[in-house]
């Protein structure tokens, strides 16, 4: 009588412990599956399409995705309705802010309200001068259609740039097609371009020839051991390689050679070359009128 309830209770606790373990295993399994699924999905959706630009001050994409809570306060405080929140199904990570420069570019507000509005610091609050923003980098991507590349003076992208003459300049090149004109090539400089996209918005072509791209697409990277000699030289204030040993030519008697100056120097001959040591006169006309030349002409 006294043992029976105890065994019963034992089996009850054993059963419930088994049930608990089983339940936990199943719940844990379900959670793991879900996490794996979401994890895979999140890996897939971190690649930002090149046309989607983050707001000014946005942290590096990896950090940004851990910082932005998808609240849209930056979107709300942008006076130009530049920014949008990505919706589920967009190519941009769901809920995060971005803009498409060809639709509405960033107007580079002096007070940067979008950054001020961000509660999390996903838009870095240390960005106080909008000229220091690096949302991306403009690249003149279609040289075949850009009007300036054909020798016309469109210049629109250059004119609209808020950082004109620093972020974008017109570089003169020879126009080989006409032979006698210049090409004014719009040229973007990465140390000043903010990636605002006003140039991309303004390009007069049917589809733009100049586009703001993420840095990692727009920029190459120099081999880490490469040095530009002329920069190193001006930094050091002198040449960094030992000067060449003066070259000695083994010339016939009475002749010498000056590599960077006159060239062949024949002793006893003056600069005008009027000397009979040479078979040729100093003036090309003498050569043309010489007998050698005429003889050859007669032979033919």
């Amino acid at each position, binding site marked *: 009588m006294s043992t029976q309830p105890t065994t019963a209770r034992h089996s009850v606790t054993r059963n419930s412990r088994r049930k608990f373990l089983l339940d936990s295993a199943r719940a844990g399994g379900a959670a*793991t599956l879900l996490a794996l699924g979401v994890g895979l999905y999140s890996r897939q959706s971190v690649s930002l399409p090149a046309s989607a630009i983050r707001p000014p001050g946005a942290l590096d994409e990896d950090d940004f995705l851990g910082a932005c809570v998808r609240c849209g306060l930056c979107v*709300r405080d942008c006076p130009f309705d530049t920014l949008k929140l990505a919706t*589920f199904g967009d190519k941009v990570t769901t809920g995060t802010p971005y803009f498409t420069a060809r639709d509405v570019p960033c107007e580079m507000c002096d007070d940067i309200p979008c950054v001020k509005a961000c509660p999390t610091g996903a838009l870095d609050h240390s960005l106080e001068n909008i000229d220091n923003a690096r949302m991306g980098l403009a690249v003149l991507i279609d040289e075949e259609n850009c009007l300036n590349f054909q020798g016309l003076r469109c210049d629109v992208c250059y004119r609209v740039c808020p950082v004109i003459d620093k972020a974008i300049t017109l570089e003169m090149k020879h126009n080989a097609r006409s032979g006698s004109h210049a090409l004014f090539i719009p040229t973007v400089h990465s140390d000043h371009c903010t990636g605002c996209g006003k140039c991309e918005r303004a390009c007069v072509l049917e589809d733009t020839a100049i586009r703001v791209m993420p840095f990692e697409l727009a920029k190459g990277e120099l081999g880490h051991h490469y040095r530009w000699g002329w920069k190193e030289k001006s930094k050091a204030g002198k040449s960094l390689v030992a000067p060449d040993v003066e070259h000695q030519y083994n010339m016939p008697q009475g002749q010498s050679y000056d590599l960077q100056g006159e060239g062949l120097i024949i002793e006893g001959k003056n600069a005008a070359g009027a000397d009979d040591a040479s078979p040729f006169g100093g003036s090309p006309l003498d050569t043309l009128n010489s007998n050698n030349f005429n003889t050859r002409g007669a032979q033919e």
Partner: protein
Amino acid sequence: MNQTHAARHPGAEAIADKGWLAANKWLLARRGSQLSILLLFMLGPWFGIWLIKGNLSSSLILETVPLTDPYILLQSLFAGHTLESTAIIGALIVSAFYILLGGRVYCSWVCPVNIITDTAQWLRDHFKITGASSLSRNTRYWILAATLILALVTGGIGWELVNPVSMLHRGLIFGMGLAWFIIFAVFLLDLLVSRRAWCSHLCPVGAFYSLLGTHSLIRIRADARDQCDDCMDCFKVCPEQQVIRPALKGHLKDSTEIIGPVITSSNCTNCGRCIDVCAKDVFHFGLRSNNTVNHTTNSKNINKQHNHSSGVEVL
């Protein structure tokens, strides 16, 4: 008696006794609260009245008071981001609110998905859809842990890619895109797969808020539990049925230890639906304190409970 109870819908007796309005007052208040919070957020984009900006993840009231969802903030911390003070202040304000009022007040009074899942449950009852998967109610805590580990491992807030709660709220304010698919999936899950599958078994947001409200001040109390006539209506409407029993019956299933009348489980969402549907006015909102046992009522209650035990086992 059991048959008549099964045949009519839960709360019919309460409506007959108290009138329709009184028998639905907390439900109406909750819907009012959920919809007006949504409306407050919509006033801006719709009418240019910016009382509150942002969404449930983070917002700003009247350009001054910040509010931030502590759960998403926690994920951000796990992802390795050091936050601006604005977000931290916002999260402290929100946390304080739910720590006091009951964590899952978020679920029943704020969360827009609750309207969807309640509708699914209503349809489920209406069309008598049965069939349940035996998923544990603790699955949500595992998922909660999984979302945090995900943030830790990937360095991003992965859960926000699929979170139906923020997706619906943000979507209604900023544009849904294809988010309706996810919301519809949650609806179908609750309608067809299992009773209260999403909110009471899986949702890590609800799980987080339940942990936040473990010691909340405001609780549902079954002080008049000796009036209970075992009609089971409260069990039928409660999204977290398991929380009612100890407080109502005064003891756990396989124990005779007497328990006070306060529903202490943090998974009670403080929705007040049990108050609505009880014709005997057993339940009311109260404080957590003074959870003492009135011995006379309880012995009586337990005796009665033993007589009707089969009725309870049906659950």
